[in-house]
């Protein structure tokens, strides 16, 4: 029954095939591994496969696996798309492919060295001079840029597709900052967690040897004399499409994630601006393109790079991989000459062919292209020319003439490629297993004299039928790629380490990340403080609406005004009486208006931005909560759905999630500088917000009826009403309350407790002062804490003739001023490196890291 069903599933898939497919071999027989996979899927059942698919999608979203798409209005984080059906290649076949890839990498490395060296390829007539001098990837300042290793091309990614003859064809080279290996790894991790049984009866090769090999290579490149070399993974920043991958790989590999602004060249070396001061950098793995690396010698308008970087590389003080200049190899025209280059350098034939390519700079090829346009795709030889590939067969006669005219005018700028034909592969689309076109990206890393090929890769399949759309920017699907065999006992590849395996014991905290962490603490607490107090106020309002008279009572007015003070959303409830009569309108605006500084929506938005800017700091649990907070954020932005009845439910949910966020931080975050800065930001905000409420509630003495309401609200705001009642029962007095919220050392929301915590945190952060001396921030906190401890509570509770509690008000103002100074001081001490460099131009285009 089962076997029959399996045959049926396979049969129904087979019957839908309209071109050659991965499942079938050249003789039309089903490949054994695919048979096994189909049988496993059958056992699982399509419905279950669908369910798992949903889990996978959720998991990826929870893990924050995204691919940012530029140009969308809200800077959309597009969730990564993963198809649960993997792409299978048999180990034996893969070994052949790997050989082809290794040969290709060796060749590209030789080309790279030749083009930035003697240029014999041109002198000996193997390639036309245009491939160097009309190549936008050839950077003249890079002619003396050399890595200390033999291989200059360290990382290489190749896009492949299967041709009708069953052979893999090389379609594209990625040589400057290859992307995708992080997504590949995450795909594998999620698949093995959520669909482990799919691999039943197969042995799937591991990906980790590739990453070990990479770490090994990086280690060999770094300063041998240093025990713990400083390795930086350089990203263009959170706005880049593949920022998830940058952060993911940095933490997986154990390198410091940094942006150009985090780095500085000084005395010919590269330094990381960390909160412990400047730290010398040994190796940089860059994810920014060549031309953006150094505004001094390359693109002048680049704010992503590091001025002076090229000089530092020349002097051998830092190793950057891939070496700037490697994009010279990404010119499409090289495909037309690879066969000759291979013979020239290696005296052998290409193992894996490139897709057939014609460079139009030669008359014969030009004529061929002009007369065979229907079979060809026309491209510019140089990438990034804003010229999109043109399918000859899709053109009208007049469009074709226009294109021919364009090509004939500057033939050397154009290439033509045989329209790539791809195999289809089983994909799960809307609950059905259907054939879709797919292409595969493979990853290689130099290791000594050889290239290590990842045993797997990133397969992208087209979401639409009979068309090939794989770019992630246009919504492609990805697949885990399995290199399969039935021998589980296969000897794992041995990685020979040249140094102890622990690579980067010391991961520095770049100043920019430090600043983000500090503000995460502040925004989180700021949001929570406003929500908390808003909830208290709404409760009082509801009580009044249901059980009180129609006239607004004095205490409600004071609470609403305190809310305005607390959120600094002036004039708010301070000016217009109208707002008082229908407070919900203002309250809802205060919740949902993203454009209003101080609103809950605006604080959460800043919080989420800061969180994603340091995403390498978070574990999975944290991401899950951040995702929930993000959902809550989307909810509250929708003001139309909010009213006096449901607003509290939404706010409660949000508050609880943020509390959970802090809880996970408290329970699981390593007690390092990252943690201390986040905590410090949180404490500063908590102190300031609590002081604000006390000041506005009790700065002026009111009748005891009003004050009793305010005391209760304030105690709830400090999470203290229960403790208070245990001691004082139902007797409410300002004096007893102040004694508790200012001085009670055991209560986490008392001022004295928070100030002492802050003091201790500051003491543990790296100090810029000598020995035991206090820095300014520490002095301010000590002063504030002492002022509170010396406070004379009965005197503070009293009012002067005009019923102002001026002594209380002034004391709290002073403490508030001191704590604000702490924040300014920390900024100067730890984050001031984050000053941007000045450029005389507006950025023209953004560095893209498209997969």
């Amino acid at each position: 029954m089962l076997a029959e069903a399996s045959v049926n599933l396979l049969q129904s898939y087979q019957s839908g095939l309209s071109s050659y497919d991965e499942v079938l071999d050249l003789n039309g027989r089903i490949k054994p591994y695919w048979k096994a996979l189909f049988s496993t899927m059958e056992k699982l059942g399509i419905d279950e496969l669908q369910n798992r698919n949903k889990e996978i999608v959720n998991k990826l979203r929870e893990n924050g696996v995204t691919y940012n798409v530029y140009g969308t209005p809200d800077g959309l984080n597009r969730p990564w798309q993963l198809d649960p059906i993997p792409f299978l290649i048999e180990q034996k076949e893969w070994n052949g492919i790997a050989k082809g890839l290794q040969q290709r990498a060796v060749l590209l490395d030789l080309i790279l060295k030749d083009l930035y060296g003697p240029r014999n390829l041109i002198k000996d007539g193997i390639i036309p001079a245009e491939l160097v001098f009309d190549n936008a990837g050839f950077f003249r300042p890079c002619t003396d840029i050399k890595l200390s290793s033999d291989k200059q091309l360290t990382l290489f990614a190749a896009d492949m597709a299967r041709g009708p003859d069953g052979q893999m064809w090389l379609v594209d080279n990625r040589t400057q900052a290859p992307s995708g290996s992080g997504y590949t790894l995450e795909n594998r991790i999620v698949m093995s967690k959520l669909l482990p049984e799919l691999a039943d009866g197969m042995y799937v090769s591991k990906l980790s040897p590739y990453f070990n090999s990479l770490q090994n290579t990086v280690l060999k490149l770094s300063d041998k004399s240093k025990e713990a070399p400083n390795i930086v993974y350089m990203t263009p920043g959170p706005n880049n499409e593949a920022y998830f991958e940058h952060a993911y790989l940095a933490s997986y590999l154990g390198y410091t994630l940094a942006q150009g602004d985090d780095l500085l060249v000084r005395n010919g070396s590269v330094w990381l601006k960390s909160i412990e001061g400047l730290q010398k950098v040994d190796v940089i793995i860059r994810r920014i393109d060549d031309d953006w690396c150094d505004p001094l010698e390359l693109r002048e308008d680049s704010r992503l790079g590091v001025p002076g970087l090229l000089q530092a590389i020349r002097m051998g003080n830092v190793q950057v991989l891939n070496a700037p200049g490697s994009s010279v190899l990404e010119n499409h025209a090289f495909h037309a000459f690879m066969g000759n280059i291979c013979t020239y350098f290696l005296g052998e034939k290409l193992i894996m062919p490139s897709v057939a390519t014609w460079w139009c700079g030669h008359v014969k090829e030009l004529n061929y292209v002009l007369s065979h346009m229907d079979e060809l795709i026309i491209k510019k030889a140089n990438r990034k020319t804003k010229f999109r590939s043109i399918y000859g067969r899709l053109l009208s006669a007049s469009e074709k003439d226009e294109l021919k005219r364009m090509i004939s005018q500057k033939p050397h700028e154009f290439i033509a490629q045989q329209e790539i034909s791809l195999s289809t592969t089983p994909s799960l689309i809307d609950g059905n297993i259907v054939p879709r076109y797919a292409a595969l990206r493979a990853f290689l890393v130099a290791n000594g004299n050889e290239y290590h090929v990842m045993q797997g890769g990133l397969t992208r399949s087209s979401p639409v039928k009979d068309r090939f759309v794989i770019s992630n920017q246009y919504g492609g699907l990805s697949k885990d790629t399995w290199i399969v065999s039935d021998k589980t006992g296969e000897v794992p590849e041995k990685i020979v380490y040249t140094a102890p395996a622990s690579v980067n014991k010391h991961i520095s905290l770049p100043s920019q990340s430090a600043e983000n962490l500090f503000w995460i603490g502040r925004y989180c607490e700021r949001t929570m403080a406003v929500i908390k107090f808003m909830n208290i106020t709404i409760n009082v309002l509801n009580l009044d609406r249901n059980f009180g008279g129609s006239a607004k009572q004095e205490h409600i007015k004071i609470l609403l005004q305190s809310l305005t003070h607390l959120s600094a959303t002036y004039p708010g409830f301070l000016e217009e009486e109208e707002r008082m009569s229908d407070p919900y309108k203002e309250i809802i605006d205060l919740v949902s208006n993203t454009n209003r500084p101080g609103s809950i929506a605006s604080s959460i938005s800043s919080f989420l931005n800061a969180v994603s800017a340091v995403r390498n700091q978070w574990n999975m649990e944290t991401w899950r909560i951040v995702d929930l907070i993000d959902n809550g954020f989307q909810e509250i932005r929708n003001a139309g759905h909010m009213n006096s009845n449901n607003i509290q439910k939404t706010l409660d949910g949000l508050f609880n999630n943020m509390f959970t966020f802090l809880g996970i931080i408290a329970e699981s975050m390593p007690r390092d500088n990252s943690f201390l800065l986040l905590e410090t930001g949180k404490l500063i905000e908590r102190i300031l917000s609590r002081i604000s409420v006390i000041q506005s509630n009790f700065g002026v003495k009111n009748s005891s009826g009003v004050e009793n309401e305010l005391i209760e609200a304030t105690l709830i705001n400090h999470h203290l009403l229960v403790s208070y009642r245990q001691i004082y029962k139902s007797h409410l007095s300002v004096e007893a309350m102040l004694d508790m919220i200012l001085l009670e050392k055991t209560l986490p929301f008392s001022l004295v407790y928070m100030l002492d915590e802050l003091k201790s945190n500051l003491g543990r952060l790296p100090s810029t002062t000598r020995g035991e001396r206090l820095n300014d921030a520490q002095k301010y906190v000590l002063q504030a804490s002492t002022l509170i401890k010396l406070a004379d509570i009965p005197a503070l509770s009293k009012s002067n003739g005009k019923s102002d509690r001026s002594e209380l008000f002034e004391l709290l103002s002073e403490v508030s001023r001191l704590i604000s100074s702490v924040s300014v001081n920390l900024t100067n001490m730890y984050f001031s490196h984050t000053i941007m460099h000045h450029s005389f131009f507006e950025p023209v285009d953004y560095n893209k890291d498209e997969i």
Partner: protein
Amino acid sequence: MKYKLIHKTEYRYAEPVSNYHSLLCLTPRTLPDQLCTEFRIEVTPEPSQIFERTDFYGNKTHYFSLHSPHKKLTVLTTGMVERQSEMTGSLFIPSVVTCREARNRMLNERSLKIAFLEYILPSPFVKWDQEIMDFAQECFLDDKPLYECVQHLCRKIYTEFKFVSDFTTIHTPIKDVLAARKGVCQDFSHLAIACIRSFGFAARYVSGYLETLPPPGKQKMQGSDASHAWISVYIPDYGWCDFDPTNNVVPGERHIVTAWGRDYNDVPPLKGIIFSYGKHTLSVEVDVIPL
């Protein structure tokens, strides 16, 4: 001729600059007809090190960085340069290679193509279109010697364009210069190069200095007492020949060469990246003193 060369550049910043990276391309080249016997760079405030490098074109560049806050930066270079009377340029036997022949050879002789292709192709600051070709059309006749044609072009630019200092910046497109018929030496050089390349010949940008003759009796030369720029054109069988479209002269003893490249972008005399929010002002003083 022997010259003492003084080139002083001063930046003043409204806000203190705490980080500065700079690349200088100011050292006179040593050539068969030019000798640089002495060269010194003084930077105030003083950087901890100045790194020398020879670039892709054989020009000498110097890199330095500053890391303490400063509101004023001075780069002073001084040098002694000996210029011999021209060996290229004013030809005793004028080159007779015609435009047609020159173009064919540049296209078809591999060694020529490999050596000069980058000076024939468009470069960052030198691009052209039909309008620019139309402008130069009358100068480049297939049967005429290339050398004469370039002279014709330089004369045309000299007579039809006005030297106006503040009209253009280095980023003004050639087309705007062509439309306004005014500019400075960089603009005229870029325009001339665009014209020459558009007809398939190799031309490069030369950066340097020009000695100005004193006014009495003689007409003062434009572009005096400042950095100067002119062009060099490759004439097959003869070599690189310099032309000065700004002054319509064949560069000779009074032109001192510091660097060449495809265009200005390859050889800016001084460029820098600063870390600051504020504005800055710049003053440049150049003296070319005959000894």
